């Protein structure tokens, strides 16, 4: 039989007739008690030894107990001093205390125990030592000495007294003792060999089959392991992927298109008048490039007509200037709704027939000051549904379903105004952690002045929100700059909790 070394040693040290404690076996085999205990249980599981357990009370000295064992109990020291000074006659207390070398609490302790133990009388400021008392026979001193020498003390009253004086601590511990079973004896007689201990499992051990006969050195499995920095998907990117998953699952198809685009697609198609305050250079990122080429001609005319005269018999236009030159100016898109315009017009892809659902999670640009919740660049989630006879209720139901996927229940729809949607709603939801009501998106039904020039003659409902806002809600990040951009803190990215 081949067994790991610790077990072999234990088997050899154990006896069939004499139950031996783990401690005894540990010192016999020169191993740690934990190792012996583990080996004993393993051998018990193989039926080679029996392990008996009993609970043992033991006593040990406290620090104070140790001190008194070295220096003598205070009452004993007082007795000796009083005896010496008075030889049976009363001695002034101060003199006796000084002679005994007692100070502080030790004085009170000495006085409290002096009479109890029959060393004499303390009265009227004087100490008398009883000449018949024998300090050398003090049972408490004897008990302290015995415990210090690891011997047992049988007098329970003395132990209790010492414990109540805080000189001794009483403990319970489990004592395990090991006895060889018959099978153990047989195994020993047939011969038990120690297996080799190895540090690492090597290719040679595996291929030779030797792994079966070796013992693996035990590790301290609770020790710290070195930190490993694996690669990770960016936390915001992970959020974008999750949003895309949800939208694809809801039947939405992804859009793509230019970041730098003609104002025509960014604003004019959206029925934003050219003198709208949001179209001044303060809010947008106009680029220093020549005006865009190739705007679709018929569409440009229809959009201009919508701006000037409105759409339909009862429609009114804006009383604002409109020029194609202004519409051709190129800027970074302030929203990804420019993509929606390209798709709805059929310019990006083919002409679309209802029903359709489209989305994008792409960057948009805002000329704004940078702070903990605003970036110049952010990801906009944009989505729209095109179908015959959509109602405001359909809009509400769709967006409730979307937010429910992110744990945001109870959406509130606050009537709102956008130049390109009517009716329009700001979406409010409850922060999943703080319970605060916060704005989580903007939505509405595209106006006919938007859809009619694009050639769409059914309803389209749309909504948008910043991905960062959703990410901050679900990750608890407080400063958006930690997440996004070149100021990113690698430590933050490495330790951010993964969302899924």
């Amino acid at each position, binding site marked *: 039989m081949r067994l790991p070394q610790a077990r072999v040693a234990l088997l050899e040290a154990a006896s069939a007739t004499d139950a031996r404690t783990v401690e005894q076996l540990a010192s016999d085999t020169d191993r740690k008690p934990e190792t012996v205990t583990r080996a004993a249980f393993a051998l018990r599981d193989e039926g080679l030894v029996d392990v008996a357990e009993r609970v043992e009370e033991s006593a040990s000295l406290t620090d104070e107990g140790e001190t008194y064992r070295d220096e003598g109990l205070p009452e004993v020291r007082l007795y000796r001093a009083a005896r010496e000074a008075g030889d049976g006659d009363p001695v002034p207390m101060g003199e006796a205390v000084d002679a005994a070398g007692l100070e502080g609490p030790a004085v009170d302790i000495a006085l409290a125990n002096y009479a109890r133990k029959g060393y004499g009388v303390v009265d009227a400021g004087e100490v008398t030592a009883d000449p018949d008392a024998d300090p050398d026979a003090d049972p408490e001193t004897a008990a302290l000495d015995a415990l210090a020498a690891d011997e047992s003390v049988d007098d329970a009253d003395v132990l209790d007294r010492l414990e109540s004086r805080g000189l001794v601590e009483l403990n319970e511990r489990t004592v395990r003792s090991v006895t060889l079973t018959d099978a153990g004896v047989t195994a020993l007689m047939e011969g038990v060999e120690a297996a080799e201990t190895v540090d690492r499992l090597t290719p040679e051990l595996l291929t030779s089959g030797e792994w079966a006969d070796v013992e693996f050195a035990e590790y301290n499995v609770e020790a710290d392991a070195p930190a490993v920095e694996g690669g990770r998907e960016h936390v915001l990117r992970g959020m974008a992927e999750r949003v895309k998953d949800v939208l694809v699952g809801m039947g939405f198809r992804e859009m793509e298109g230019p970041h730098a685009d003609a104002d025509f697609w960014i604003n004019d198609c959206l029925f934003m008048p050219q003198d709208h305050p949001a179209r001044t250079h303060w809010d947008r990122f106009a680029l220093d490039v020549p005006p865009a080429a190739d705007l679709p001609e018929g569409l440009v005319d229809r959009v201009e007509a919508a701006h000037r005269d409105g759409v339909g018999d009862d429609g009114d236009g804006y009383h604002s200037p409109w020029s194609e030159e202004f519409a051709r100016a190129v800027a970074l898109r302030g929203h990804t709704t420019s993509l929606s315009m390209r798709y709805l017009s059929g310019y990006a892809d083919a002409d679309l027939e209802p029903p359709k659902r489209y989305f994008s999670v792409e960057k948009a640009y805002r000329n704004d000051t940078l702070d903990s919740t605003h970036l110049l*660049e952010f990801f906009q989630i944009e989505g729209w549904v095109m179908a015959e006879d959509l109602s405001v209720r359909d809009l509400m139901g769709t967006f409730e379903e979307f937010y429910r996927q992110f744990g945001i229940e109870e959406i509130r729809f606050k009537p709102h105004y956008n130049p390109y949607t009517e009716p329009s709603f700001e979406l409010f939801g409850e922060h999943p952690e703080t319970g605060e009501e916060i704005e989580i998106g903007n939505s509405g039904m595209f106006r006919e002045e938007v859809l009619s020039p694009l050639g769409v003659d059914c309803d389209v409902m749309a909504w948008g929100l910043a991905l960062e806002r959703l990410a901050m809600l679900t990750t608890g990040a407080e400063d958006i700059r930690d997440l996004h951009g070149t100021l990113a803190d690698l430590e933050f990215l490495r330790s951010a909790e993964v969302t899924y």
Partner: protein
Amino acid sequence: MPVVDIDTDELRGLTGEEKSDEEFKEDLFALGLECEGETEEGLLRFEFGPDRLDRLSVEGVARSLRYQYGADRGVYVPETNDADWTVEVDPSVPDERPYVTGAVVRGVDLDEAGLDSLIQLQEKLHATMGRGRAKGAIGVHDLTMLKGQALDEESETSGTIDAASADLRATEKTIAYRGVEPDGDRFVPLDADAAMTPADVLSDHPTGGTYADLVEGLERYPAIYDELGLFSFPPVINGKRTEVATDSRDLFVELTGTDQWTIDRMCAVLCYALSARGGTVEEVRIDYRDGATFPDEYGPDLLRPDLEVDEKSVAHDRIETMLGVELDRDEVVDLFERSGLDAAYAPRGDGAETDSAEGGEAETVYDVEIPPYRVDVLHPLDLVDDVGRAYGFDELEPTYPDIGTIGGRHERSRLERAVRASLVGLGFEDTLNFHMTSPAENYDRMRIAERDPGDDLAGAPLGAEPRAGIASPYSEEYTQLRTWALPSLVQVLENNTHRAYPQDLAEVGFVAWRDDGETTRVAERRRVAGVLARTDATYEDAKARVRAVCDDFDADLETPATEHPSFIPGRVARVVIDGEPAGVVGELHPEVLVERDMEVPAAAFEFSLSALR
């Protein structure tokens, strides 16, 4: 979004409702006005969507509340008295600001709060419809301080005026809108003690400086005169003589601008507010007939204010499909009236004659009357929104539309995800960097020189493409789009020198540059970029990873030697994928590293995402 500051005592007076501030806040939230807090003067500040510009004053807000409470119903139009004053427009008026409108309001009860509200309304209208006074500017004057010039005999008998209009013209007093040369006249403006010329106002008066750009470069400035002389210099400042105070009772309101419709609507909003203060509106004649430019759609001879009620038709069916609920016709009429509109329904189309009270084949259509302060109603759909708000959008039960569509991602989106997964698998930290940067980061600190637009880019180092710049940048750090991604990764390294190494960073991201051959004049591309910063980083480490990514996408990689100023000479190669040049790989130049206080070497690569297709 516009804000309006409200004195709730005023609101109590104007609505006749003794409600608490809290109750008003709730009622106003339901109208879409959100309380933002208190001003220093103790007024409540509300923010709202920029559609209902009639709510830019406490009077308009009170009017909306009265409709909400049911205290008012339907359309209200103030009575107007016949004109006593004429504004004659002179051909000398600058072409850049040709139009004028106005009104007289008598018997206004202006206390301190009322005057503050009037000033606030003017300022807010300037900021919104008036487009910072460029499109429309308001002047309000104490009428008693104006002296009208009697019309001269000559024009009265002029043969060009027919009898009817001569009758119309029989107002007693005139003032004149005309052009004045910058130093052509003097007047004492508001907040000044001495007479100044318009040019002096622009250069020396604080308000003049603010609005100088609106008249800059004009040969003649807009000016309004009465018999005593110049009293208003629109759109800059009024004269002190006609300043309105709390004891002013009769007001003269004038508006000038670039669009007649816009100033007429601003004037209507003002008249409604002053009428709510007990004023009686009196018409003013606007006379463009002396050769001045006049608005084509209205003609040269106008009576203002224009408080005409507009009319639009909206189909019952459209209301029902948009809100997703069935409604009784009388209920719809009720909802219109509670919105401050008037509506009457009639069947239209085939079967109109056989229509019964229960509704039949014919379509029910509402003729809706819209008061002149509703500048936001452009289309019948805007009326459907009003019905929805009055009905209460909160009352609608959400439904999930029963529409089947097929979802999916586009090819580039899938490719980006796959490449990112490949890089993360190789141990790279995925980063997400700004697309905007500065020439210092994009070119200078990478030791490359920007090419000029139109240069042949063949042979140019990756990243040297000419920039697409931001025309009016906010910050020096963000003045252009990045032409390559590697500088962003190096910036992240620079900002994290205190963090543990190795730092292996990657990005699959957007780059762009000026290219006049593109319809948007900007070439937009996606790149795969990575950097390995560690004590033992070498060219080989970077190339091994490029190869691993190429292997993942079954692409063939070659790395012929090249030169690139960002890299150490002799340790840089072109990345050629499937025979096409795609990017660069090498050890970053020590100057690039030292510039960023880096104390470890770094190997890096960047190539086109599309090369992996």
